[in-house]
């Protein structure tokens, strides 16, 4: 007993000490890390579309004979004739079914924003068009 007491004492002391370590600094650091990662990370799932542009004046080979789609704030025109989205799809579908590589030239006029143009590109991609060229708009 007299032998056991002094050995038990020093063995117990450090254990008690360790229990009293405060968790607050740990939480501080973890919170700071959390806030950093919340602010710095982005969750946007980026994709990409290939954009092909043609020169003005039809100098690029293959633009001659392409189907010309004009997109303006008023609507769409296929080779100069006003069409709706569904009509455009209906008219392009047969020629694209025949030849998916048929060149389609898109000419955006002033006042058309990028989102509308990309929506048209999406429509054409759904129809199976693989050869789409963007033409500078006529002023």
């Amino acid at each position: 007993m007299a032998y056991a007491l002094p050995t038990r004492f020093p063995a117990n002391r450090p254990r008690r000490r360790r229990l009293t370590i405060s968790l607050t600094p740990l939480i501080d650091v973890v919170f700071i890390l959390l806030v950093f990662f919340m602010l710095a990370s982005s969750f946007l799932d980026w994709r990409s579309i290939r954009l092909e542009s043609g020169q003005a004046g039809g100098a690029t080979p293959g633009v001659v004979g392409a189907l010309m789609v004009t997109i303006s704030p008023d609507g769409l025109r296929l080779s100069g004739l006003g069409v709706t989205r569904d009509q455009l799809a209906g008219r392009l579908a047969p020629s694209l079914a025949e030849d998916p590589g048929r060149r389609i030239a898109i000419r955006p006029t002033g006042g058309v924003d990028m989102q509308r143009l990309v929506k048209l590109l999406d429509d054409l991609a759904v129809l199976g068009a693989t050869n789409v060229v963007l033409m500078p708009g006529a002023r």
Partner: protein
Amino acid sequence: MRRLSSPARRRARLDDDRILPLINIVFLLLIFFMVVGRLSASDPFEIEPVHSLSAGAPALEAPLVTIGRGGALALDGEVMDETALITGISQAGATGLRIKVDQSVEAARVVALLNRLKAAGVGEVKLMTVPSIEGAL
């Protein structure tokens, strides 16, 4: 001394027990954000990305041109005007290019810029988009 410290110590241990679930959750959130989020350089100006249905491959590593809402241009995060942009790109000698465009930018302006870039020798241009939520537009 011992009589005084032991209830205080018990209280401290109780506080730790109470705070442990909080730490668990904060740790979980931390790990979630570390794993799911992607760290990337932020754009020089705020951009509302273009939505698209297409599921093209995520962009290749190439110089990034940013076109902001008012038509402001930036190359790899540095704001510059159009002539500086085109000389910068042709000096870099890159064949491919990524562009990040705000959805309200005029399409005609972007196409005009694409033409000028093509004349400067840029081959492949990829427009960065985000997947559109069905029926959002």
